[in-house]
């Protein structure tokens, strides 16, 4: 890697996500955020490396572990934090919460909390683009747990059968909640699964932000020039529990500690410093900016207002015009 501007951008993205989510955990403990809260800590390189490859005309569909994807798709941290606080200034008006962040203007189709349910939707978005002659990519993020669902197989099959421009981004963090990948999948080579549907596939080191960036670039380029779907596996790891309710009985602390040695932010920072792409003052500036952004987001969420219960049934059906 030789581009300091890109290095700075990638590191900035990862640090913004990490600091935002650390604050989310704190706000959860303080009772400001409730419900389920699924943190992405450890996996930041995937969203940071991949999302910036997409253009504003492309679409993004994500899972319930989607704070990073929302933020890096361009949603203001203020609107994300306000959503988690249940305030009407939130990006889903307080109706969605942590698992259902949306932004129509940025073509961010959410926060889907049914495992694999976003895959058919993304395939349908791509179907419409192909039908209407638009050269756009619909990127769908999901965990390796989704691969056991029928929706994965049905979507992969139809995407290839009809040559739809959908990018399947599998964030393989090795655990479907608490079930390790080798306890849930007979075939651990996920690209082989894509291959069985004739979908071109790549596997990338999801702890290395530049590897994620490069793989995403290749996949998007393939779709834009050749049409048809693409499957990308990002091999990553979740440092924190599945959600705030998870006592982590299913994995050893040693295993987590070993993966933490590959912390994508720490390793990339060291690399940037060693290669002279960034100086210590650059890293410090990134941290300071992220801290200020997080503080502003919390202030905004705190100052946000609660919707009146008089409008409880709003947004169930489209109002008659």
């Amino acid at each position, binding site marked *: 890697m030789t581009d300091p501007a890109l290095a700075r951008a990638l590191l900035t993205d990862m640090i913004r996500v990490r600091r935002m989510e650390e604050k989310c955990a704190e706000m959860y403990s303080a009772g400001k955020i409730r419900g389920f809260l699924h943190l992405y800590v450890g996996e930041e390189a995937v969203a940071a490396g991949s999302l910036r490859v997409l253009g504003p005309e492309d679409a993004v569909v994500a899972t319930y572990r989607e704070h990073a994807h929302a933020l890096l798709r361009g949603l203001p941290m203020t609107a994300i934090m306000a959503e988690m606080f249940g305030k009407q200034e939130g990006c889903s008006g307080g109706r969605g919460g942590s698992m259902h962040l949306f932004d129509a203007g940025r073509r961010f189709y959410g926060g889907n909390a049914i495992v694999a349910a976003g895959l058919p939707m993304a*395939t349908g978005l*791509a179907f419409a683009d192909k*039908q209407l002659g638009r050269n756009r990519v619909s990127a769908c993020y999901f965990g390796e747990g989704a691969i056991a669902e029928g929706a994965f197989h*049905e979507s992969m*099959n139809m995407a290839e059968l009809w040559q739809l421009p959908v990018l399947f981004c599998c964030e393989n963090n090795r655990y479907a909640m608490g079930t390790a990948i080798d306890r849930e999948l007979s075939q651990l080579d996920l690209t082989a699964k894509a291959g069985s549907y004739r979908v071109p596939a790549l596997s990338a080191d999801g702890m290395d932000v530049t590897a994620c960036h490069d793989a995403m670039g290749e996949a998007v380029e393939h779709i834009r020039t050749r049409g048809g779907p693409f499957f990308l596996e990002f091999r990553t790891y979740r440092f924190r529990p599945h959600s705030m309710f998870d006592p982590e009985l299913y994995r050893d602390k040693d295993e987590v500690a070993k993966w933490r040695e590959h912390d994508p932010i720490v390793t990339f920072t060291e690399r940037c410093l060693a290669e002279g792409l960034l100086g210590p003052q650059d890293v410090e500036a990134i941290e300071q900016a992220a801290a200020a952004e997080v503080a502003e987001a919390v202030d905004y969420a705190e100052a946000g207002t609660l919707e009146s219960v008089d409008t409880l049934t709003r947004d169930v059906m489209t109002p008659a015009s």
Partner: protein
Amino acid sequence: MKTTYRSAVHDAIADAMRADDRVLLLGEDVGRYGGTYAASKGLLEEFGPQRILDTPLSELGFVGIGIGAALNGLRPIVEVMTVNFSLLALDQIVNTAAALRHMSGGQFSVPLVVRMATGAGRQLAAQHSHSLENWYAHIPGITVLAPATVADAYGMLRTALTSPDPVIVFEHVGLYNTAADLDSLIPTEIGRAALRRNGSDATIITYGGCLPKAMDAAERLAQDGIDCDVIDLRVLRPLDDATIMESVRKTHRVVVVDETWHTGSLAGEISARIVEQAFYELDAPIGRVCTVEVPIPYAKHLEEAALPQPEKIVSAVRALFGDTGRAGAGDG
């Protein structure tokens, strides 16, 4: 002009596709096969494989594709062969299509129409004959239609395709061959129930495949001097309470006829609404004619015994008048 229910569905799809390039049909065997119930016969030839899409047997997947396509500028009609098979797609319909607008704070509406056959009467046994309209009518965020006439088979589907939100259309298998003399087929509204027969002694409330049975029962009852209103609900969600209560206030006696099972049936919901809104208008307990609590059997006599039939409706209406059995003018 004699038109069948089947050809009305066909013409609604064809006319909608001619009028709007965004409309397309996808589902199992809708193209080359012509549709399981032949409702889409010939459409592939007119509109081509870009707009009439045979899908793999992937109900969950292709309903979800319909949702994504609807979100991104198209007006898909998804055909799911029968309501039994729609259970494979229930997640996409309930957890995504119906919920998306709400959980996105009003940002994403899903203008998707899902058509499916429903109901029994053709000896197709327990995995092709069920009526589960009430499951869908339970769900906020979708509109549920049950056209029972040829005019509505055309008209409601056309209007459903102008809805900004998901619409589920139930076509009872027993109706496809029914026919009517109609000068023209036109879009019909999808908000109100319809009074199909005007009487003064009792109200029969029904929808879909049970409408012809209810009309038959009403004619038999009329011969004995019991003159019935017959309400065709047409729209199962949202229910048209006003039309129901207006009739109850006129006749004071009600039987609800519904091909779903008694337990948790739409008939139960309608009965509750009448009790809530017009209890003091009632001169007799509300009667229900629903399907006997058994998976639909294959043998013809058993299937018939399980389902609402005109005789059962006649008996239920008579029971509203107690042991003396007869109601004449002014007796209500």
